[in-house]
């Protein structure tokens, strides 16, 4: 059984560390990046099944990166992991092709179910988001 390949994007190393350690038992974490621009490059190079990405990142935000990824024809499923809880963000992320939307304070509980849903082309949104 091949484990799904996951690329992580967040500008906070402690966060990357925790996400990686959470996912490693079930997924193949192929790489971690700290900004949107590097994410585009690494996604093209690594061709992951799933990208877990933060929204607030230097150079390109997660949403702008998602837009670019669609433009370059990436087929990776996008799961956003963020502290933003406004519905506007969820809307925007989904408009740019995102499937999952997980708030960081619910990482342990929600991220793995969100990735599972995304791999099935289903949407997932953390229940803590406003107007969610």
């Amino acid at each position, binding site marked *: 059984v091949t484990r799904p390949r996951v690329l992580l994007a967040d500008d*906070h190393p402690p966060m990357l560390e925790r996400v990686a350690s959470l996912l490693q038992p079930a997924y193949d974490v192929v790489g971690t990046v700290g900004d949107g621009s590097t994410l585009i490059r690494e996604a093209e190079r690594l061709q992951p099944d799933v990208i877990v990405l933060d929204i607030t990142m230097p150079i*390109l935000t997660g949403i*702008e990166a998602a837009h670019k990824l669609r433009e370059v024809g990436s087929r990776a499923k996008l799961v956003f992991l963020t502290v933003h809880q*406004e519905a*506007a963000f969820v809307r925007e992320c989904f408009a740019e092709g995102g499937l999952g939307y997980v708030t960081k304070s619910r990482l342990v509980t929600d991220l793995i179910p969100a990735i599972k849903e995304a791999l099935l082309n289903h949407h997932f949104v953390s229940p803590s988001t406003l107007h969610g």
Partner: protein
Amino acid sequence: VPASKQHRAVGPIDRHFLIGHGGERQTSAITCLLLLVAGAAIFLLPKSTAALPRKEMGHRLTSDEHLLFEREKQLAILADTLHVSITQEAEDGYLASAATLWQPNQWYILASLSLISLGTLLIGGLMLELRRRKSIENELAATSDRLRLALDTSQQLEEKLLLSEERLASVIASSMDAVIAVDQDQRIVLFNEAAAEMFGYNAEKAIGIEINRFIPQRFPLQQADGIRHFRASGVTSPSMGSLSALLAVRANGQEFPIEASISQGETNGRKQFTAIIRDITERKIVEEAVISLSGRLIEAQEEERRRIAREIHDDYNQRLAVIAIDLEELAANGARLDIDAGKRLHGLWNRVSELSEDLHALSHRLHSSTLENLGLIAGVRAFCEEFGEQQGMQVVFAHENVPHSISDDVSLCFFRIVQEALRNVKRHSGANRAEVRLESAGEMLHLSVVDHGAGFNPKERSRRSGIGIRSMEERLRLLGGKLEVQSCLMEGTRIDAWLPFMVASPRVT
């Protein structure tokens, strides 16, 4: 004292004088008449009394018998006659002596009487003349007094006039503002020291030259129109009233902003225009400094808010998120802990999550993360939704042809105007519905916020809402935009804002 009044004052005295003069004439005529009558009486009386005794002189005796008797009678008669004649003789002698006095002297007497009459007449005339002279002298004295008074008054007036002229001249000379007067041919007739300094032109040499010398020829029409209009109507036109666009030119060719008020008058039947001109270069500099300062204040405030919001979001919130994750993980692996500790961990996780959410909300209030990350449309839409939900209002948002990437300044400006306008709707209108619309209109981005609430009288803007509107105006002005506020009592309020949208330069990839 005016001349006419003096005339009136003289009138009654003159009439009184004439009446007195006429009375004197009458008296002197009566006196003459009396004198003449007396003279005639003296002349006639002695003649009549002398003629009477002479008619009774002839007596005759008739018989002898009666001779004695007759002689006796004759004797008696003779005695009587003698007596009478003696008496008569005596009387005649007296009369004769009187007659003899009159006869040779009658011409002298008449002449003297005439002379006396003449003298009396002359004396009377002289006395009248004296009285007339005295009255004229009195009159002259009174008139001279009045003249002296009038002269004094006119001297005082002249002194006052001189003083006020001196004052005016000193005011014009010492005025901080330039004072320039031109005649109807636009030639300078007055050019004070301040004008000389302001325009860098010798005050004496300026007299007689055309005012056009000091008006920039770039805008000849505009200002000439204003002056023509003023000349025709005598009223400074609104464009000259606001005067913000008026420029003048110094002798060295340097243009400078001025403020001027023009008045029109007439000297010796010729129209004259006097302009009081103020050099507002300094004020313009100060105004620009104030604008730039308030712009910098707004910028600094926004920058500070953005910085704090980012710090909260990117640092504290992320660190809290990590703590929350650790707590969540610990709680999830609670199998290795006792039940009590597991519950407490779960509680801690919830509290940290709440704290993280609150911090995020704070950061969002300081600086909208939606606007920051998702742009103007998403930012405004999110705010409309949040505001409507929090305030129990229906806020309808619509947009049309708005470019995706708009400069951060324009986005933030419109976002703040929407915030302020919706807060005003909530605070003042009583309306439960508001419409927010964003669209591109040519080179401009147009925002409108409309409600159908209580409205207000734009002339009686309340201080609070006034400040709100002022801050909107200020923000727009900084970016070259403009604001229009229309409101009608009981009908609602409409706010329109326009900004030239500068499409943001694409971010470096």
